[in-house]
């Protein structure tokens, strides 16, 4: 795919090259964003920002790296900056404790809107995505790239700029943490149902 994109034309500020660039990677970047922020509007906004930032800093792109990997990195950073900003805003509003991230209960966001989730899977996926939001950023990234983007360990390692064994460890920890959070969530909801 990256062979179709002429980096030099992109560097020269050619609009047609930029359009080609967005057409080529728009879908994968939009999907990555929506799987992290779980909202169509926010994902579109972040995907657009990703392309604009990539275009503005294309001169710093080293052609030894893959264009897609570089774009993914920008998108991931954009998504987490946005999520951090959103969490900060919420914390200040509700005066929630700042330091007990692990103890945060699973909170299903009111603006959850993911068109890639089919109706019969919606409830469980919603709970899973809400639990994913409370994971540390690198664990969530590894999990999203592996489970929803279908990347292999090598591709994830390149995107996250870590070793393959680090990816394995991140995925292991992500699953363990998710399991713990989901168990807590389901135990609580089951006890509510009993009463």
């Amino acid at each position: 795919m990256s062979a179709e994109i002429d980096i030099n034309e992109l560097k020269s500020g050619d609009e047609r090259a930029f359009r080609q660039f967005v057409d080529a990677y728009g879908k994968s970047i939009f999907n990555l964003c929506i799987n992290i922020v779980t909202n169509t509007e926010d994902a579109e906004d972040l995907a657009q920002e990703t392309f604009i930032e990539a275009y503005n800093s294309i001169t710093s792109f080293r052609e030894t790296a893959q264009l897609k990997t570089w774009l993914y990195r920008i998108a991931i950073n954009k998504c987490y900056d946005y999520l951090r900003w959103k969490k900060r805003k919420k914390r200040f509003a509700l005066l929630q404790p700042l330091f007990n991230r692990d103890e945060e209960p699973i909170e299903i966001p009111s603006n959850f809107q993911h068109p890639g989730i089919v109706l019969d899977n919606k409830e469980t996926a919603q709970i899973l995505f809400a639990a994913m939001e409370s994971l540390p950023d690198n664990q969530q990234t590894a999990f999203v790239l592996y489970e929803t983007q279908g990347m292999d360990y090598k591709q994830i390692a390149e995107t996250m700029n870590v070793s393959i064994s680090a990816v394995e460890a991140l995925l292991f920890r992500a699953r363990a943490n998710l399991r713990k959070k989901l168990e807590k969530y389901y135990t609580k909801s089951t006890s509510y149902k009993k009463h």
Partner: protein
Amino acid sequence: MEKIPNIEDQVNEALSSAKKVQPVEVPAFFTDRTVNRLKASAKEGYTFSPTVLLKIAAVILLVCVNVYTIKYVLSGSKQDTAVTPSVKDIVNEYQPNDTIELTIETRISNE
């Protein structure tokens, strides 16, 4: 009675639901909107919004207040050391003499 599903099964089902997420098509006119946004951002250039200016002003004010406070505290502590009297000053001020000591000694010997 409603059957309550096993928690382990629910957790596994939730974890496997990530694999069932379908790829999504980009919203209509995504490329056009991105290009328009790029053009708009290029026109805007680097301008500061009033909120940003207010934040910068608040930071500068905070730094100034901190610098002033530190200066004030340091100058205050210097003054304190200058004012702190030495033993010599106390002697000069109260001019104690041996008579008090002698009076006590005479009293003890008398007793």
